[in-house]
């Protein structure tokens, strides 16, 4: 086995312990990774992959030699995202004995931070990482819902109509922030018809729980509009340990590009709540 930069071989963790950790991480990460359900995903291209080709050059001529023009290529660097957490060695020993209630609270919290960071970067931008978000790039004015959510199907229908009017074909999907998701799932319209079913009929695509997203974002899923490029897919690595705890981390590298800003519309909460 060749070592890689995650250095898992150096951790005082048994194979069974790693299986428990990986399974727990996968279970905690997967439900909330909304961007991966809605946008184009490519990769993983590996930890060594450092930048996304955007096909452009800087305008400045950097040549210092007469008769030579030289322009530097523009690339989008991948961002490395890392969430550290600790696991108690006593808990790992309990897992090795077959315990089914191993305490992975810190891992669960780290997974949630990763989910929220990935979603927030894709939907609301992360300027320092060079990521333009879907909602923040959209030229469409956000649609403001009512406090009660009673007009939610109308908001989503208006968003879809706005996309159609801009020549953006479906199917469409919706990333629902925590509050919007809860309200959509538990709300019945007049006559008892579930709001969720109504929305599904309007968008013809997935409605996705998206922690880290403020409000909601309706977007086209026809492809070619939003590009998530994975370098290293979500992984668990080893940092250090002492007699009591092992310090680990969840890590990934990725870039995200909005290729068609007009292919999404944000739905926002009313002000002064």
């Amino acid at each position, binding site marked *: *086995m*060749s070592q*890689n930069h*995650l250095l*898992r*071989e*150096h*951790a005082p*963790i*048994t*194979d069974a312990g*790693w*299986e428990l950790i*990986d399974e727990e*991480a*996968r279970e905690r*990460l*997967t439900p909330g*990774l909304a961007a*991966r*359900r*809605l*946008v*184009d*995903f*490519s*990769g*993983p291209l590996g930890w060594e992959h450092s930048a996304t080709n955007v096909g452009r050059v800087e305008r400045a001529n950097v040549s210092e030699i007469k008769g030579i023009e030289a322009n530097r290529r523009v690339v989008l660097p991948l961002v490395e995202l890392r969430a550290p957490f600790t696991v108690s060695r006593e808990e790992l020993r309990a897992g090795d004995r077959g315990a089914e209630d191993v305490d992975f609270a810190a891992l669960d919290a780290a997974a949630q931070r990763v989910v929220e960071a990935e979603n927030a970067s894709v939907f609301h931008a992360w300027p320092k990482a060079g990521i333009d978000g879907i909602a923040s790039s959209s030229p469409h004015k956000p649609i403001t819902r009512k406090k009660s959510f009673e007009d939610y199907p109308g908001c989503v229908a208006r968003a879809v109509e706005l996309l159609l009017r801009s020549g953006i074909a479906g199917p469409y*999907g919706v990333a629902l922030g925590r509050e919007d998701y809860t309200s959509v*799932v538990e709300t019945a319209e007049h006559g008892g018809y579930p709001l*969720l079913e109504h929305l*599904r009929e309007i968008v013809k*695509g*997935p*409605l*996705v*729980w998206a922690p880290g997203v403020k409000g909601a974002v309706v977007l086209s*899923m026809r492809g070619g509009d939003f590009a998530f490029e*994975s370098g*290293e*897919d*979500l*992984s*668990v*690595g*080893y940092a250090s340990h002492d007699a009591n705890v092992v310090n680990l981390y969840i890590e990934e590298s990725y870039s995200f590009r909005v290729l068609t800003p007009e292919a999404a519309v944000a739905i926002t909460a009313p002000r002064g709540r």
Partner: protein
Amino acid sequence: MGFDQYHEPPDELPEQTRTFARLCSSLTEEAEAIGWYEQRLAIEKDPEALAVMADAVGEEYKHFSMDLEFLLRRTPKWRQIAEGVLFKPGDIVEHGEAAEAAADDDGDEDGDAAPGAAPSGGSLRIGSLRGEGL
């Protein structure tokens, strides 16, 4: 309409696996078509018919290549082995054995990895979840 591409009950398979199986079936069909055209081209005497079929088999090459690329993108270990075999001069079998060994060394799926290893070297292999929602 048959659903022969599924070896297990489709209802029990996740969406991603069903998509993967469809593309595997498509890849097989394109390979069969390439084989059929190769035979037809070998015996056809009419030059006009030959030209038509030569053009058609080019389509099948394209379809096969697109199917393969899709499957390789979704299967990192397969991709890694393919990279060690495809478009390289020399002994195909030697390249294949070397590529397989290298992929196994990087954390294989066969269960013989070293302590601390996980499938694909620590990656949780979540990848794309496209289309999955409520």
